[in-house]
């Protein structure tokens, strides 16, 4: 056999580089790797919204509405519920994609280390992955809104604004959870994060019922949670009453969370990946 290695010796001209920014090259990995898992993600992005909206929105909603069209917050229950679920699902996908896949990058598949042996830097790896998670949230939110429309749960054209609001909610959760995941040695803490973080938030941030129904002090707590911001934003848009300064406050809260989470992740990623 006469196979010689396809390498250029030092004297040869350096190969032409493409102009793809480094973080997008890391992003490309996720895009290609997604083709092996996309089937599994259909359940969370497509089937869950249908099931939730059918069972709780329509089924339970029927009992709640009692024939009234203004049962909860002056609208049918399914109108009230759907935007809450939209934000809640964005949070779940944002958090989910920032736990186990981050551990895979560090420990199970070590894809982060493969990237770091190339010209990519820690921040490229981080931004590429965060961008990918945001992509996942984006497609899931688009599907969710489409399903909502099919359930006649999109009463206003303002609902278009719920799309970026849901994406922002997912990204705002992803960044700090990535920062957290990079500090973990095993995946056990992810279960804890779910039990004591994600699930309670999903249930009590105004997703399924107005927070005004909570006892006084819990109301205050609920209004301060990050998911409440996302739920309120999405609901405001979907119901055609986006609300002025309140909405600005919600957006500012989520943007601050995204920024702080990203800065924290820069620190924890570097600490974990560069030794």
């Amino acid at each position, binding site marked *: 056999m006469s196979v010689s290695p396809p390498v250029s010796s030092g004297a040869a001209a350096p190969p032409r580089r493409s102009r793809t920014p480094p973080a997008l090259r890391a992003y490309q990995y996720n895009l290609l790797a997604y083709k092996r898992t996309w089937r599994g993600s259909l359940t969370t992005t497509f089937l869950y919204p249908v099931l939730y909206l059918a069972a709780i929105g329509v089924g339970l909603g029927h009992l709640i509405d009692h024939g009234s069209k203004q049962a909860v917050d002056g609208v049918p229950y399914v109108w009230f519920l759907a935007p809450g679920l939209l934000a809640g699902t964005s949070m779940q996908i944002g958090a989910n994609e920032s736990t186990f896949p981050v551990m895979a990058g560090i420990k199970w*598949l070590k*894809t982060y280390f493969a990237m770091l042996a190339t010209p990519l830097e820690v921040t490229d790896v981080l931004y590429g992955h965060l961008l990918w998670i945001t992509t996942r949230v984006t497609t899931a939110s688009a599907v969710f809104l489409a399903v909502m429309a099919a359930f006649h749960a999109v009463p206003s054209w303002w609902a278009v604004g719920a799309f970026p609001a849901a994406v922002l909610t997912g990204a705002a959760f992803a960044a700090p959870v990535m920062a957290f995941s990079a500090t973990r040695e095993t995946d056990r803490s992810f279960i804890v994060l779910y039990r004591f973080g994600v699930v309670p938030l999903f249930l009590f941030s105004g997703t399924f019922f107005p927070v005004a129904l909570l006892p006084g002090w819990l109301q205050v707590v609920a209004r301060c949670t990050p998911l409440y911001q996302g739920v309120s934003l999405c609901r405001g848009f979907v119901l055609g009453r986006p609300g002025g300064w309140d909405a600005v406050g919600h957006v500012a809260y989520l943007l601050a969370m995204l920024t702080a989470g990203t800065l924290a992740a820069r620190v924890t990623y570097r600490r974990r990946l560069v030794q």
Partner: protein
Amino acid sequence: MRARGLTKRFGGFTAVDGVDFSIQAGEAFGFLGPNGAGKTSTMRMIACLSPISAGTLRVLGLDPMRDGPQIRSRIGLVPQEDTLDLELTVRDNLYLYGRYFGLPKKLLRERVDQLLEFARLSDRADERVEPLSGGMRRRLTIARALVSSPDLVILDEPTTGLDPQARHLLWDRLYRLKREGVTLVITTHYMDEAEQLCDRLVVMDAGRIAAAGSPRELIERWSTREVVELRFEPGGHEVQGEGLADLAERVEVLPDRLLLYTDEGDATLDAVQSRGASPIAALVRRSTLEDVFLHLTGRSLVD
């Protein structure tokens, strides 16, 4: 590449303790030593993956602390543990890695085909990595390290855990690279690998360099021409070692055998037998790097 007083500390632990070496372009340079000698830490500093704690280091004439991405764009790294994506195909692993370097897609597709050929993986190109054998994965990792046409290839224990056939195939591939003028930096704890592949090497122990030179020079300087290996009944090596000490320049007593260092192996073996000593097994062989290591550190390499 040049290192002066290169040091790596992890908290209170010093993994690399002020080492000096320089490596010329086109050379195959080895770091030989037992596990924990500081080889991998040194490799990681050279590959700009790990900041240096003290000393100076220049790689391809650049400063790893400042020019990391630029240096890494000219380095191919074969890490000790494979970082392949097991769920992707062989081809995708190569392709994506090339994209990390920012190589244009068209150029990359051609090169991936060449590399698949080089690594003898063409017929597995579109299968997932997971079912591949250790040797195949290692070849894929090496092929991946070549995707950017690097000037310098760093191999951290390239053949650990492979069967002899897989090792020989890998060595052959590394020879070809060397012939192409690629600089190779190799760590290993196999002396045969170091002897086969390296023009020059350093022997590392406990974070320091114990000796440096070509394999031949090291053996000439630190060992005798030949070695007589004797095996006695278990537990008898200490006593026999004392009795035969005057027949050789130096005697090493290992748990399972006795080594007599001498320039005339057959003559020494005759002398042993004329003393009435009756080993279960006896062997005369040439000195190897393992003997050098044993002499310098008092320990065998695969501890």
